[in-house]
């Protein structure tokens, strides 16, 4: 029994009242291969797209407004829900921006742990990308394989912080916890197996005829277009621009580790796929180096800055002044200096930036989240025309957009 309300059912997906043979197709906002809540209005000439109009905002939750009403530490869990495939990279971007604002340096062990979290998150994100894109194109096996590996990574993260998806594993001024006992051994075990797994995926996909037809020369982004649309990350590197913020503007310990930045000048879906696979190998390489760095670091995990950062738990429990300071920081929040900062980090999706305007209060005056996926969705306006309907799915797949951060 249909229940009466104002939304009378009708053929909302198709309009027939055009004379010029142009069909307008509505795609989304709840489409299984839209990777979230993307709505596309596609103008079609036969099966070819003549005009594409992405409509976003279906996951707009008002994070920037929330930030203006929250103390800095309170906002940290909210950043998890931006790019929820790789939460720690958002946590890190925010923590780094606030640290730059208050001029703080983080202990070395915290840096090592952060690097580990960032790179495991990158692996998780790329595996998830591979799984969903392959599923969209029809490769169910790769979906199941990639999710299997991703679950092992989730176990590792769970061992570290207790959460699978929304980690909140990084604090302003350091990290909350040291690594658990089995973490490094488990991580090593995973990494030793990873090249084999990546080879499995590549064997299934690289020369697969269907995969090649859906990927090669589809969704070609020229260098000018990528730069003009503000693309970053793999989207930019696949179009022939060698720009990786980890290399060019190194943060944390990225200047101490040795890794390559894979670049391609093809700009099509297949190039992006190859770059994701290459980046997974590079991440594994970084992780091996970071594991070695962990040994012999000092045990301190949080920076010492009594004005902004709470003391370690043991001090809070034993020393009166630390307790008072902790109480003030938790109830009133830290008050960073007056000023503004824009810090970009290389998240798995691209350039993740945080702009913070502080007026010396406990709440940011303005916080702007620069999410890479926002522009990677915008480029669909220019990218899709000329392609056919089935290509839409593979193009959306390789742009690797996550709607938590598109709409914020």
């Amino acid at each position, binding site marked *: 029994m249909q229940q009466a309300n104002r939304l009378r*059912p009708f053929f909302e997906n198709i309009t027939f009242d055009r004379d010029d043979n142009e069909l307008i197709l509505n795609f989304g906002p*709840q489409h299984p291969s839209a990777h979230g809540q993307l709505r596309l209005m596609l103008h079609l000439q036969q099966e070819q797209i003549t005009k594409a109009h992405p409509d976003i905002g*279906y996951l707009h939750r008002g994070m920037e407004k*929330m930030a203006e009403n929250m103390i800095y530490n309170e906002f940290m869990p909210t950043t998890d*829900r931006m790019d*929820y495939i790789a939460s720690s990279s958002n946590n890190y971007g925010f923590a780094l921006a606030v640290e730059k604002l208050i001029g703080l340096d983080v202990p070395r062990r915290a840096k090592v742990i952060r690097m580990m979290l960032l790179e495991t998150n990158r692996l998780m994100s790329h595996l998830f990308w591979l799984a969903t894109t392959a599923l969209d194109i029809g490769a169910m096996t790769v979906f199941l394989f990639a999710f*299997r590996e991703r*679950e092992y990574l989730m176990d590792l993260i769970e061992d570290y912080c207790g959460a699978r*998806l929304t980690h909140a594993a990084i604090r302003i001024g350091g990290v909350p916890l040291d690594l658990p006992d089995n973490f490094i051994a488990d991580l090593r075990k995973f990494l030793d197996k990873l090249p084999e797994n990546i080879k499995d995926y590549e064997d299934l996909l690289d020369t697969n005829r269907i995969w090649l037809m859906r990927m090669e020369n589809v969704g070609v982004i020229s260098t000018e277009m990528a730069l003009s649309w503000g693309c970053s990350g793999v989207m930019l590197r696949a179009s022939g621009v060698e720009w990786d913020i980890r290399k060019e503007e190194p943060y944390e310990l990225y200047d101490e580790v040795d890794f390559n930045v894979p670049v391609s000048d093809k700009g099509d879906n297949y190039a992006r796929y190859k770059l994701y696979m290459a980046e997974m190998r590079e991440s594994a390489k970084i992780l091996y180096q970071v594991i070695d760095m962990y040994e012999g670091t000092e045990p301190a995990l949080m920076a010492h800055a009594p004005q902004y950062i709470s003391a370690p738990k043991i001090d809070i429990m034993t020393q009166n002044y630390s307790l008072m300071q902790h109480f003030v920081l938790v109830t009133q929040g830290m008050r960073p200096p007056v000023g503004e900062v824009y810090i970009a980090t290389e998240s798995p999706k691209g350039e993740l930036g945080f702009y913070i305007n502080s007026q010396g209060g406990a709440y940011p005056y303005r916080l702007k989240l620069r999410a890479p996926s926002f522009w990677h969705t915008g480029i669909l306006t220019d990218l899709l025309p000329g392609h056919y309907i089935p290509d839409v799915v593979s193009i959306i797949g390789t742009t690797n957009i996550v709607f938590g951060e598109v709409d914020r």
Partner: protein
Amino acid sequence: MAQHQVNYLKDGGLPVALTTIDKVVNWGRSNSIWALTYGLACCGIEMMASGASRYDFDRFGTIFRASPRQAELMVVAGTLTKKHAEFIRRLYDQMTEPKWVISMGSCANTGGMFNTYATVQGVDRVIPVDLYLPGCAPRPETLQYAVLLLQQKIRKESASRAQKPKRLM
């Protein structure tokens, strides 16, 4: 040629089971709950994980379908925003009876941490909900337990019950 002779009266009875229509129908319904993929945000990822290799939802007879016409369960996984609200209602109306709704995660239950202008404060303002799943995001095990609870609920109902108008209009 081998002769197969089964004496039904002697070896374990006739291949006949006596039961009620209710039980048969509910047995079928409860063990083949096809869910509409309604991944909205982070919980949608956990919903995918519960359908993927480790958690393997298929063993409970739950298969994710992309069309509301083929689905009888809507797992609302993630934050529902005001802009999206009319679409969820429209898709809910398109699902065929009987239909059930699981609200997965804090955002879908109450708006959760997003107590803002853009978020619907609980999907039960828009569609009737049968089961609320706590967590942010709930683990795949939690979703599976919720589906098992829903199965119990289905088996308790009358199969031919008249669809009572639910709370929302």
